[in-house]
């Protein structure tokens, strides 16, 4: 669309660039996490930062997820902009108190005296046989925590632009990266590239059905959309990119137009983010505009199993998306 020059980068490299650029412009940023310095992070997102910024700003921490999250909150309170890496985002379970009872609430409890410019980021590791304790995608928990911002990028460009915005935002941000997307390449604009928080992006336009999906589910949905297009069904894929704040206007506008909503999300079904999107959309689109009941395509309500056929069965698949769209088209 625009004339901005781009380069092809993996999502991991795009995230790495975002960190590097922000650390160059703001000396109050420090990065802390397990194996992020010497090793550059298990998935190379922090590679090279130690050499460039030294061990005081790029810290290999003890295995203490609660403490590094809490230290991030404390650092933010006194004017730094810490970026905390959780090696696998599931480990946030160990840090929920520091994140939610502290990071998310400190500003409000203080009556607005402080802000908490903190980023807590980490990979969603499902789909590769890491089993139940390394394969959750817990965005629904964070969306339910007032005070947090929740971001989940689906492309290299969004990843870079959103991480930069997250670091500059004065609020605590949970930034969720899909591990299987780290190596996926995409065009990233040259120069300063910022993606605004709270603005959805229509990843594909279509007149028949609106799919709302973030992160890896965007790629799955686009695949389904291409397949369905061959059958004459035109799917619009709306990627909110930030789950909180949610760009409900963009979603509602699309759904009002198509009259059909399918939400795709890899989290467990019960109490998942897909339920939230359905419920919120109902607040904004009159029932009479719906041509079909909204559908949710989600993971099943099980812990994530190890073996290939089981994990495949439990996570949402291309066929699941295609059939959901087919169902709403038939309704």
């Amino acid at each position, binding site marked *: 669309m625009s004339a901005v020059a781009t380069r092809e980068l993996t999502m991991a490299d795009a995230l790495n660039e975002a960190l590097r650029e922000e650390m160059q412009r703001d000396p109050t940023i420090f990065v802390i996490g397990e194996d992020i310095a010497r090793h550059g992070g298990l998935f190379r997102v922090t590679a090279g930062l130690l050499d460039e910024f030294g061990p005081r700003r790029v810290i290999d921490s003890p295995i203490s997820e609660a403490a590094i999250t809490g*230290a991030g909150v*404390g650092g933010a309170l006194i004017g730094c902009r810490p970026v905390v890496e959780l090696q696998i985002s599931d480990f946030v379970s160990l840090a929920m108190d520091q994140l939610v009872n502290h990071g998310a609430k400190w500003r409000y409890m203080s009556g607005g005296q402080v802000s908490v410019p903190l980023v807590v980021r980490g990979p969603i590791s499902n789909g590769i046989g890491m089993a139940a304790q390394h394969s959750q995608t817990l965005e629904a928990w964070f969306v339910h925590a007032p005070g947090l911002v929740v971001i989940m990028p689906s492309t290299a460009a969004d990843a870079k632009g959103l991480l930069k915005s997250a670091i500059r935002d004065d609020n605590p941000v949970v930034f969720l990266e899909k591990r299987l997307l780290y190596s996926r390449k995409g065009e990233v604009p040259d120069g300063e590239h910022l993606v605004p928080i709270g603005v959805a992006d229509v990843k594909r336009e279509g007149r028949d059905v609106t799919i709302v999906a973030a992160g890896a589910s965007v790629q799955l949905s686009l695949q389904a959309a291409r397949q369905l297009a061959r059958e004459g069904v035109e799917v619009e894929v709306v990627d909110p990119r930030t789950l909180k704040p949610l760009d409900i206007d963009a979603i509602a506008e699309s759904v009002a137009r198509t009259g059909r909503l399918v939400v795709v999300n890899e989290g467990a079904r019960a109490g998942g983010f897909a339920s939230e999107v359905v419920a919120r959309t109902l607040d904004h689109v009159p029932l009479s505009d719906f041509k079909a009941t909204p559908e949710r395509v989600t993971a099943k309500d099980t812990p994530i199993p190890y073996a290939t056929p089981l994990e495949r069965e439990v996570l949402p698949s291309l066929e699941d998306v295609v059939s959901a769209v087919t169902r709403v088209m038939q309704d």
Partner: protein
Amino acid sequence: MTSVETGASVALTQLYLTMARIRAFEAKAMDLFAEKYIRGSVHPYTGEEAVAVGVCAALRPEDYITSTHRGHGHCIAKGLELRPMMAEITGRATGYCRGRGGSMHITAMRHGMLGADAIVAGSLAMAAGAAYGLQLQGKDAVVVAFFGDGGAQQGIFHEAANLAAVLDAPVIFVCENNQWAISTPISCAIRIENIADRAAGYGFPGEVVDGNDVLAVRDVAARAVERARRGEGPTLIEAKTYRITPHSAATPTDNRAPDELSYWRERDPIVRFGRELVEAGHASPERLEELDRQAGEEVEDAAEWALASPYPDAAAAEEDVYAPADWLTPGRLA
């Protein structure tokens, strides 16, 4: 000895006055709770005044503290004003936190008060991170984190202490060992004598101090603060003390032995320090009475001021959830 007020005497009587203020503040807060001006609870610091006052006497204004559910004493010792404190705990718009925090969550950034935390031991990692961040910014400020004996059994105590050690963060962990956690005696919580000994497990000094001796507390804190400022890392101070009231206004039952209580009442840190001041000629008994009276008057004034203050505007309840941001345009907040 005479009781001419020398510079030293002034500083010492100031400590006495601060302790008296805390004592008076808590008594008033308990009354206000009984009269239903305060909701939730109040956890009086009564009997433990020497700890906060001694520690904060070793701090500069630009140093920071974090605090607990039993936080009024720390606030007063760090120099917070009584009026906005009282307004906060009575839920008024003029409170430090505009009524959003209440008794367990007073924050006052302009006094170096990073916040009270109702999660037991919850602020220790924040304190370590704040201390590290200050150092990274080239400041020589330190952070003191107060917590209770009960809090020393929380995982975050361990993680924060160890993280602070490896970061050489300028933080001082002050464990107020009042020997009880609500109804649970310390003997149910640990199998060791001194919590300070745990510092050895992190590789920094641990010191036990008589928490009812304000000058002893000040001295041990001063050493720890100097160490931290020199970049030599954290210290764990265990101040042995006792709360001479029940746990809180909302939990008034007290199952502690009467002779244990009277043993500690006899060691009241304010009475004791007053006696020392008189004996050393720093103050006359009359001067102390005057200070007590002054403290009481300040507290009464604060309460009056607070109760005359307006309640926060309900329509503004959703303010302050997020810091200003581009995305925070009306109607866009998820």
